[in-house]
């Protein structure tokens, strides 16, 4: 016999977006139950690079990233603990003139969204960051971007949600959800929850949840391949990305350099994932080309996890196309960490006001109904 709950909103998935939604919904006075298959914040929210980055994003995402950025300045206060957010600045590197031209184009477009990017030529970039390797010919600096500790943000949001009265259930995977006419009934092994609204923030598992409501989404696993070195004297002052992707790296106050690039092995069905050696070695080689001073360091750990990826590399955020009062937010395609806190607010807006102040049209779930309408991503390169 399972336990029965009745709430205003059921949230499936305790990543940053789901937990931030629980926090915002409690703030609006609604009752909330949240189900996570494991521990909150242990999925893609917890294993990513930790980039708090606006530049280089798909232009459709920029309004969300712009709105999210000030939330990070207040996050420690909001959560009551240090999430190690550091506005280090983010430098996107060009290794060829063609890449520099691409950065210039992006800087112009980003300016239309109020994001000021500073283009640095070869001399400038080298005088500011003398430790960069010889192949760097320039870069684009976003001074207000930075990084934070992904391992602590999700759990901190989950605990805040609990303190605010949300019923957060861990090790409670949703096994089914269906419309009841007046709302939804969501079940886990030991729980049956009735609610007026349902939120699907289930990461790579969100495709399954959408399918329960007749929505077929082309969601595939995305498996970031991550590495970390032993602690080194601090010198990598900026978070670093590369035009065209391939590798990204940052150094934390503790001294460890964290780097990623490429995809590991992952199986969403069994929820198992592993870094791939060839990918790790390639990331190490690329990192050494950009930051040659890492040559004496040791790699002490590699890891990965599974995010959900959409064909156009931007998420699904918004109401269901089939079922009233069902809200989706998934498919962040490896760059949802920075957006997480604002996505929580947007979900709450959709539920309490029926609309969001942020432009969500590009993230509609039914954009894949007609494949020809999918625009290729305008992002400069994928990077968390």
């Amino acid at each position, binding site marked *: 016999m399972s336990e029965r709950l009745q709430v205003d909103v059921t949230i499936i998935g305790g990543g940053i977006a789901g937990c931030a939604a629980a926090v915002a919904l409690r703030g609006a006075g609604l009752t909330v139950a949240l189900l996570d298959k494991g521990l909150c914040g242990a999925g893609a929210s917890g294993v990513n690079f930790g980039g708090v980055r606006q530049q280089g994003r798909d232009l459709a995402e920029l309004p969300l990233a712009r709105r999210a950025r000030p939330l990070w300045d207040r996050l420690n206060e909001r959560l009551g603990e240090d999430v190690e957010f550091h506005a280090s600045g983010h430098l996107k590197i060009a290794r060829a003139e063609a890449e520099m031209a691409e950065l210039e184009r992006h800087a112009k477009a980003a300016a239309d969204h109020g994001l000021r990017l500073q283009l640095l030529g070869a001399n400038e970039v080298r005088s500011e960051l003398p430790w960069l390797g010889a192949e760097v010919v320039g870069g684009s600096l976003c001074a207000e971007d930075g990084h934070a500790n992904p391992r602590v943000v999700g759990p901190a949001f989950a605990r805040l949600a609990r303190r605010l009265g949300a019923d957060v259930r861990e090790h409670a995977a949703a096994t089914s959800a269906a419309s009841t006419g007046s709302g939804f009934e969501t079940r886990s092994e030991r729980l049956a929850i009735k609610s007026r609204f349902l939120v699907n923030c289930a990461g790579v598992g969100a495709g399954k949840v959408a399918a329960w409501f007749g929505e077929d989404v082309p969601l595939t696993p995305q498996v970031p391949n991550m590495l970390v070195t032993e602690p080194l004297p601090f010198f990598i002052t900026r978070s670093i990305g590369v035009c065209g992707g391939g590798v990204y790296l940052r150094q934390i106050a503790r001294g460890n350099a964290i780097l990623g690039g490429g995809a590991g092995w992952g199986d969403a069905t069994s929820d198992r994932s592993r870094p791939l050696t060839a990918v790790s070695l390639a990331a190490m080689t690329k990192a*050494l080309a950009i930051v040659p001073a890492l040559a004496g360091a040791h*790699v002490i750990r590699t890891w990965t996890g599974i995010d959900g990826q959409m064909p156009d590399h931007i998420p699904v955020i918004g109401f269901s196309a089939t079922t009233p009062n069902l809200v989706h937010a998934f498919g962040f395609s490896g760059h949802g960490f920075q957006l997480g806190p604002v996505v929580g607010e947007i979900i709450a807006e959709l539920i309490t006001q029926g609309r969001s102040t942020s432009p969500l049209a590009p993230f509609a779930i039914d954009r894949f109904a007609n494949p020809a309408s999918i625009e290729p991503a305008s992002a400069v390169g994928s990077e968390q």
Partner: protein
Amino acid sequence: MRAAEALARAGLKPIVLDEAERPGGQVYRQPPVAVGRFSSAIYGFEAHKADAIHRVLADCRDRVDYRPGTLVWNLFGDRLDLLTRDGHAEQRFDRLILATGAMDRSLPFPGWTLPGVFTLGGAQIALKAQGVSIGRRVAFVGAGPLLPLVTHQYAKAGVDVVAALDATPFGAKVAQARGLLASPATFAKGLWYTARNRLHGVDVKHGIQSLRVEGDTHVETLVWRDAAGAEHHVACDAVGASFGLRAEAQLADLAGCRFAFAPDSRQWFPERSAEGRSSVAGVYLAGDGARIGGADVAELQGARTALAVLEDLGRAVDRREVARLDRALAQQARFRQALDAAYPFPRHLLDAIGDGEIVCRCEGITAGTLRQAARDKEAREVNRAKALTRIGMGRCQGRVCGEAAAELLAHACGSELQDVGRLRGQPPVKPIPIAVARLGVRSLENAAGALAESAAR
């Protein structure tokens, strides 16, 4: 080496990947080069066994492909990632025997990170392999049979051993005397070490209640409380302290082997059948890496596991040999059970750890930080505690602090040790130089294939 020998005898040509430069493992570790010391001086009673193990390679000659100086740093599917003298290399396998051994189980105590504090095993290796002592006036602390042995070896080498302290009660040994007699030779050796230690003026004190090491920049004094509660101060310049052994089971973890909690020794081991099979087809376990059994058991288990491999390959095996090994292993298991009970886990030392004490020395994480994560941050599982506090996240990846962290976390949560889980293994098993990537990937298999091809031409 015993597994390799048995496989070679059956006509296979096993590859032995050894992190060390010369065969012998930890117990029969050899000096890095021939140093002109007789093995009887290095290995004592066990010299004949050490010589026999060291001889295996010579006897098998080209029937064993021995590759020293090779760290297996990752395992995924049927592929091993290796760090060799020449850089990174890969090795595929169809059968794998993991004989990864054990290391000292460290527990924090006040002063344990001071320079001059070693593990018992570290102290022993220094003497055995390098012919050096960890200090001039040395104190030893333990909770296992390594304590009387290392004490004996140091005293015999002429080092001033100023204290030998056993954190487990003497009564536990008396109570297990019957079971310990399942291995009369080992029991006799234990008595002999004790007698010799007395002769050297070192009497092992049992049931010590607390210990701490004091010193400004280096070990100066060991302070301990005896079973009766009296405090003692001993001047010394080095301390060897560890509390039993822990399995080095990271590769078994990466192989996906199922683990089980062993309440008697309070640690997780990869499950191993009596024949040496793991829960993963094609992966076998021998030696202390799957259950602490000591050197004699490791030899027997190594040979037995090789026979299981041969059976699984459909080869004929000598049933009498199988029966002999199984009998010997059963006898040893009775002895081991008694030994584990004779040296119970000294958890009173951990309970006394103050909040300011460092538990994870790589990352400088204190017991207080760990307890706070349990209390305020809902950390009820070790991997979550690691994610929130960085405990076990440094160079050693929890090999040194993992057991203590789990004990402290379980205590703070009021839960059983097995309920807080165990740290997940993540590659690399030990740190690898980032520069290894620039040397390029070399597949040993391909290299061998190319050689065979060119030879055929």
